[in-house]
């Protein structure tokens, strides 16, 4: 029997069967356009209202502040580009970090070409944003601070409440990309002074192609998508009703099960980290030991390269990911691993394992047993390991 162990939940997750079931009628019998006037379509309007309420509740805010989008990347693009355009008369300076997702970083690069200035604040060796650097970067013309809630590669959770307070104190808007954190960590947008928040459905066992942007009441950023009057005329396009219904259901389940689920994930994740560190020498854990997402483990194995590791794990039926150059399509390894100060060759040998609630201890043991062999096999093939052994003799 071929094994299949999925440990890449930060990449995407399976849509829960109960979520799919909830969505299905909206493809077939309840296909109406929510904007239509006839009563046949009103059930679709109601379904969207319901999903919006669930999401508003999950963030401790009014449903009216939730705007559905086609996913995390669109939400990030909207928040950054339209804050920039709307507030250009106040200033053209944006602050973000070196470890953001490309949906933020590439949008910032785009804005730089449009004449905006962006400061990329550094992080410490655990991946936590340097708050003194962030404070020092604020200028009179700073219009936006965007810091991710938790990092997608190394799982580090940022001091969002403190950053929100700093932004508020300086009268600067604060956006957070919470694509990885939403559904895994409790978030209250008022408590944490969050002005805008991006999230996505498919990271929390919802469907792909749907997400939302939370925009604090009173913040009037312009539209990214122009057209019809959907989403109170702020995001055009006929609503993705099945997707929105699925997102609502997935959020409902994720928040109802959060405490129990994340407790179990943390236990399993710590077991994974402890076993790997005890049994595989010349290995380091990347990220913060406590301030990390419940399901994230990230390692660097010295002397080996990540893509080889991933292919061999794949042959053992294990799905994982790496920050090596060969998996990113460039010659440089992950910008996140370089930002926490790893030398290139260590960054090339990284492995990210992200758990989900279906993973078992037996699966983790299977993965580690295979991982041990694979790492040793690759080291036996590595000239770096050969040099290291000869030097230490």
């Amino acid at each position: 029997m071929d094994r299949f162990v999925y440990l890449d939940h930060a990449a995407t997750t399976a849509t829960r069967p109960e979520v799919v079931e909830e969505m299905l009628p909206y493809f077939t019998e309840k296909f109406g356009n929510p904007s239509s006037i006839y009563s046949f379509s009103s059930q679709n309007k109601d379904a969207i209202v319901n999903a919006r309420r669930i999401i508003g509740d999950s963030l401790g805010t009014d449903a009216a502040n939730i705007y559905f989008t086609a996913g995390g990347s669109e939400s990030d693009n909207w928040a950054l580009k339209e804050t920039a355009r709307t507030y250009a008369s106040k200033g053209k300076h944006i602050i973000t970090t070196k470890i953001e997702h490309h949906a933020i970083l590439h949008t910032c690069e785009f804005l730089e070409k449009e004449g905006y200035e962006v400061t990329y604040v550094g992080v410490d060796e655990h991946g936590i944003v340097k708050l003194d650097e962030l404070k020092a970067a604020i200028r009179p013309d700073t219009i936006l601070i965007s810091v991710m809630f938790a990092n997608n590669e190394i799982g580090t959770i940022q001091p969002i409440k403190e950053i929100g307070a700093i932004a508020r104190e300086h009268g600067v808007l604060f956006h957070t990309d919470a694509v990885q954190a939403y559904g895994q960590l409790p978030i209250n947008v008022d408590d944490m002074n969050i002005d805008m928040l991006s999230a996505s459905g498919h990271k929390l066992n919802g469907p792909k192609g749907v997400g939302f942007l939370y925009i604090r009441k009173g913040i009037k950023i312009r539209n990214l998508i122009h057209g019809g009057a959907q989403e109170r005329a702020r995001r055009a396009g006929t609503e993705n009703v099945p997707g929105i219904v699925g997102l609502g259901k997935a959020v409902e389940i994720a928040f109802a099960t959060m405490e129990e689920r994340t407790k179990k994930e943390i236990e399993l994740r710590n077991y994974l980290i402890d076993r790997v560190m005890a049994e595989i020498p010349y290995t380091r854990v990347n990220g913060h030991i406590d301030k990390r997402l419940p399901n994230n483990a990230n390692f660097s194995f010295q002397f080996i390269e990540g893509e080889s590791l991933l292919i061999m794990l794949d042959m053992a039926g294990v799905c994982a990911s790496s920050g090596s150059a060969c998996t990113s399509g460039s010659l440089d390894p992950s910008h996140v691993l370089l930002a926490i100060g790893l030398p290139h060759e260590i960054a090339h040998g990284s492995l990210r394992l992200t758990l989900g609630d279906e993973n078992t201890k037996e699966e983790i043991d299977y993965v580690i047993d295979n991982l041990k062999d694979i790492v040793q096999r690759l080291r036996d093939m590595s000239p770096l390991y050969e040099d290291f052994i000869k030097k230490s003799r």
Partner: protein
Amino acid sequence: MYSEKVMDHFQNPRNVGEIENASGVGTVGNAKCGDIMRIYFDIDDNQVIQDVKFKTFGCGAAVATSSMATELVKGKTIYEALQVTNKAVMEALDGLPPVKVHCSLLAEEAIHAALWDYAEKNGIKIEGLEKPKSDISEHEEEEDY
């Protein structure tokens, strides 16, 4: 993404290892880019490559091209080995994805570097062999974990 041949040579790499007191050793690439290849030759008095071994730090394509390159030069004279190009290695592997072509260049360079080392050790000149372009720079500080 990879051809069956590449996967075969990655899963079952030929000629992995070291040769003690090798006639020639060549190391190319650098850890920064994520690829290092080292090739060892055992060359007899008739300038025939009797044995060849390799070690590689790198992606699946890097391992597979090293493995194929060693297969292509084994039993050949040094002049025949010099004719083994990156194109030949790629063709023998039924092709590589475009982003991995540099791996095959590294294999060609590793062969040249090992031949260069052999020539230097024996005080001979191999017609047509140029000093290899890239050689491994001294390792950055080893770190302890």
